[in-house]
């Protein structure tokens, strides 16, 4: 336990960050010119960090595996970004955002970090607007807000259903400005293969050029990992196909602790799985729960008939529908946090109320919203609000304005009109709260190696609230890391340029090459996807929405076997020095196969239910989670120990000074 020092500054919660910023060491502008920083990943966190570090004067090298930094998966975030601006005057404040986030995270996040996040949230909006991000506005020309799950204020800023895209393009544009100035050197279609540590400090990376397969050495005075989450360990998730854990896993194997790997967010509103060929799942923004009501039939017999295609949801009268979220959680209703909504859907489907042919879907119904909006519009426009046809027409128009692009997306995929027939949704893996352990300065347990955004573990505890991922990514990248990294780099001003001819670079490069060659020389008969799908099945069935000791133990065993089989029987066509997507995929899956085991070990270790981690052994009679603050009010930070099967657990105790720990209730 002595190894973990979270370096939380002393003093009252609301002045920790200000005081810390005032006291940490700085690097003078003339010295910044001589310092290189590598940033791996160009999502919201990576792009914003790269741009800001370059503005400050550091020499930045940015890496992404995509063909352009603009394609990082932050782009797919739909709903919005939270900020405690209180523009709506509904009682929001920094403290309330902080409190909601800690509570939403089921009291498993670090108080000081979360407060800082809430504190800088407002700056993000100012920054993005100045950059030209076209947030939604009202008719007075001011910024509009909407509400999201788990909170009772409207603090979410949005740009239709494409908020992540607009924010990422904002950060990308800030990067472009620095690329033009020559302060960022961009390496697209490059994958980080390993971190290079010289005398205990992160000094560079080994990267592979995905176009020609060449292995490259890059040195720097600090390495920032902003490579996102590891949701793709489940094969089917809302992550992009290329999203992977490899950068984070490589640093883990070189000494960075991995925290809370089992904290995974299963998002309640995704389009259900339709077949075995499926390559990914599509999220429907949580904002839909503002107006959509979730239900299943009250009678199992009705659900069965629907599954068999003999009954349409429109045939089920109002009194035979079970709006189970409104029933169970009257205070928050359909806007309960994601983990709760997901589990409730699973509970209904497991009990035989599911409504598609696989039995794994519930309805998200907009018919009430359409009527409500239609009547309102008819009244405002002085039309006849008792004319039901007119009301439906007007209502659909309003719903279209609000969610048009999401409805269109649904229709393209499912081939059903959601204005007429309720949407079918089911939970899917979406976000990973766990990640690389970092201290208050966002530095990992490797000196000089930092982790930001979804790649780190710090802010969301056991469950993330909607519209907070974008907030955290940008907070880390724009406003936190650029300051805190200076504290470390102030000791590097006389280091000078780091040679890539150092033996450590040579050794790392050799190891990487050997691994790749070994994979290629394998004369197996199964594709990489075969293993990835199999791993995904194990993870989903045994480490998914609910977990138990028996399943977790068998998962650990199965993953280990699968990993061994992978290294014996995987088949990778093509060569090393060429564009070879299968090889790139294989290296990623091989890391997932190691992380999977740690994931299950962590879930097994945590004998409580909290947030996204639900252990069947720890629940109340009516199926609510039982958290154990006495025994588990800590962060599990795992140290790699030669082999993925024998990790060493370190615990960071979570102290709550400004918050009273309560049982989370949304009833």
């Amino acid at each position, binding site marked *: 336990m002595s190894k973990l020092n979270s370096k939380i500054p002393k003093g009252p919660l609301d002045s920790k960050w200000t005081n810390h910023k005032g006291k940490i060491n700085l690097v003078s502008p003339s010295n910044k010119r001589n310092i290189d920083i590598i940033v791996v990943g160009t999502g919201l966190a990576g792009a914003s960090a790269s741009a*800001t570090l370059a*503005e400050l004067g550091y020499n930045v090298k940015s890496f992404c595996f*995509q*063909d*352009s930094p*603009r*394609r990082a998966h932050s*782009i*797919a975030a739909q709903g919005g970004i939270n900020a405690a*601006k209180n523009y709506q005057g509904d009682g929001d404040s920094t403290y309330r955002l902080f409190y909601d986030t800690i509570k939403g995270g089921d009291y498993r996040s670090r108080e000081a970090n979360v407060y800082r996040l809430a504190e800088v949230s407002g*700056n993000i909006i*100012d*920054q*993005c*607007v*100045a*950059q*030209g991000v*076209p*947030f*939604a*506005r*009202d*008719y007075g*020309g*001011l910024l509009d807000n909407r509400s999201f799950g788990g909170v009772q204020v409207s603090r979410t800023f949005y*740009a239709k259903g*494409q908020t992540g895209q*607009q924010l990422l*393009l904002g950060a*990308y*544009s*800030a990067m*472009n*400005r620095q*690329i*033009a100035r020559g302060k960022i050197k*961009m390496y*697209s279609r490059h994958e980080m293969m390993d971190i290079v540590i010289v005398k205990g400090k992160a000094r560079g990376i080994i990267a592979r050029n995905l176009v*020609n397969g060449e292995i490259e050495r890059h040195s720097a005075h600090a390495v920032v990992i902003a490579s996102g989450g590891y949701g793709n360990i489940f094969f089917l998730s*809302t992550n*992009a*196909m290329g999203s992977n854990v490899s950068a984070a896993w490589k640093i883990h194997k070189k000494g960075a602790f991995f925290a809370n790997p089992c904290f995974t967010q299963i998002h309640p509103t995704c389009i259900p799985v*339709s*077949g075995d*060929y499926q*390559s990914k799942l*599509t*999220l429907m923004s949580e904002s839909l729960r503002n107006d959509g009501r979730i239900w299943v039939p009250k009678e199992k017999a009705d659900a069965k008939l629907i599954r068999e295609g003999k009954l349409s949801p429109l045939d089920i009268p109002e009194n035979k529908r079970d709006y189970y979220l409104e029933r169970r959680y009257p205070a928050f209703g359909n806007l309960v946090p994601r983990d709760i909504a997901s589990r409730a859907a699973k509970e209904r489907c497991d009990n035989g109320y599911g409504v598609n042919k696989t039995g794994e879907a519930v309805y998200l119904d907009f018919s009430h919203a359409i009527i409500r909006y239609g009547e309102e519009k008819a009244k405002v426009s002085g039309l006849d609000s008792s004319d039901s046809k007119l009301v439906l027409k007007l209502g659909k128009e309003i719903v279209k304005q609000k969610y048009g692009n999401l409805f269109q*997306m649904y229709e*393209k*995929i499912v*081939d059903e009109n959601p204005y007429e027939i309720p949407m079918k949704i089911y939970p899917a893996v979406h976000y990973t709260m766990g990640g690389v352990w970092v201290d208050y300065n966002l530095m990992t347990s490797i000196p000089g190696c930092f982790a930001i955004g979804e790649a780190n573990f710090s802010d969301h505890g056991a469950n993330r609230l909607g519209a907070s991922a974008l907030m955290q990514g940008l907070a880390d990248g724009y406003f936190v890391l650029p300051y805190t990294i200076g504290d470390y780099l102030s000791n590097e001003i006389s280091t000078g340029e780091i040679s890539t001819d150092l033996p450590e670079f040579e050794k790392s490069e050799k190891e990487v090459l050997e691994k790749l060659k070994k994979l290629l020389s394998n004369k197996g008969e199964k*594709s990489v*996807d075969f293993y990835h799908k199999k791993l995904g099945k194990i993870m989903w069935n045994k480490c998914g929405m609910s977990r138990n000791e028996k399943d977790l133990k068998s998962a650990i065993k199965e993953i280990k076997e699968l990993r061994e089989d992978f290294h014996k029987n995987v*088949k990778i*066509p093509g060569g090393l020095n*060429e*564009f070879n997507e*299968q090889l790139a995929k294989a290296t990623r899956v091989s890391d997932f196969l190691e992380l999977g085991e740690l994931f299950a070990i962590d879930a097994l270790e945590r004998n409580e239910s909290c947030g996204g981690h639900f252990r069947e052994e720890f629940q109340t009679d009516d199926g609510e989670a039982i958290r154990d603050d006495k025994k588990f009010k800590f962060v599990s930070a795992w140290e790699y120990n030669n082999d993925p099967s024998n990790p060493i657990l370190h615990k960071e105790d979570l102290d709550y000074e400004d918050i009273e720990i309560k049982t989370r209730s949304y009833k």
Partner: protein
Amino acid sequence: MKLYLKIWRQTNADSNGSFQNYEIDEITPDMSFLEMMDVLNEKLIIEGVDPVAFDHDCREGICGSCSLFINGRAHGPDTGITTCQLHMRKFQDGDSIVIEPFRASSFPVIKDLVVDRTSFDRIQHAGGYISINTSGNTQDANTIPIRKEDADNAFDAATCIGCGACVATCKNASAMLFVSAKVSQFSYLPQGQVEAKDRVLNMVKQMDEEGFGNCTNTGACEVECPKGISIKNIARMNKEFLKAKL
């Protein structure tokens, strides 16, 4: 469904490519086009054949990675979508499908169906930004109200995903829709006015240096744009350009 595929294969940028024919069976209407490609690749891998390389990532129509030219159209026969959102229900059993990479001199082929679109990035480097520091010391976001109409127009232009379908489908391989989307987005916003002149001149200059063609207002780009970006943005950019020149 059984399908007959004719796919462009090219080992690398320097090699001469050619078309190869493949037959594929057991395709279901609910599959996406790229999932059909996955099925093909899985088969090729097992047979020991190099799988077909194609760009793809988010598979939900927003990252702009996927880029196929299917049966003579960018992103295939449906409109308002990217290739990853194209579903096989748009095809019939027994159909022949020709799959080509996006073709333009400024989009050289890297391998098979993968093309290099970094020319788009370089155009953005030339001026696709507002020069403010990300220090956090900017003014409050609500200090400058922006008319809802302008904000909406800026948003509509900003939704460009940079996929390059406009270039691919334009008979002149012109990048005007892409460039104008960015110029237009900023021209609607007060924040963007300060650098408006330099922005349009520099971005157009870079666009020309990359070797894209001239716009002849055929309107093909806006039909194929997955995000429905209107060619009125091109006229707007022309105006901005003239204003900057005069």
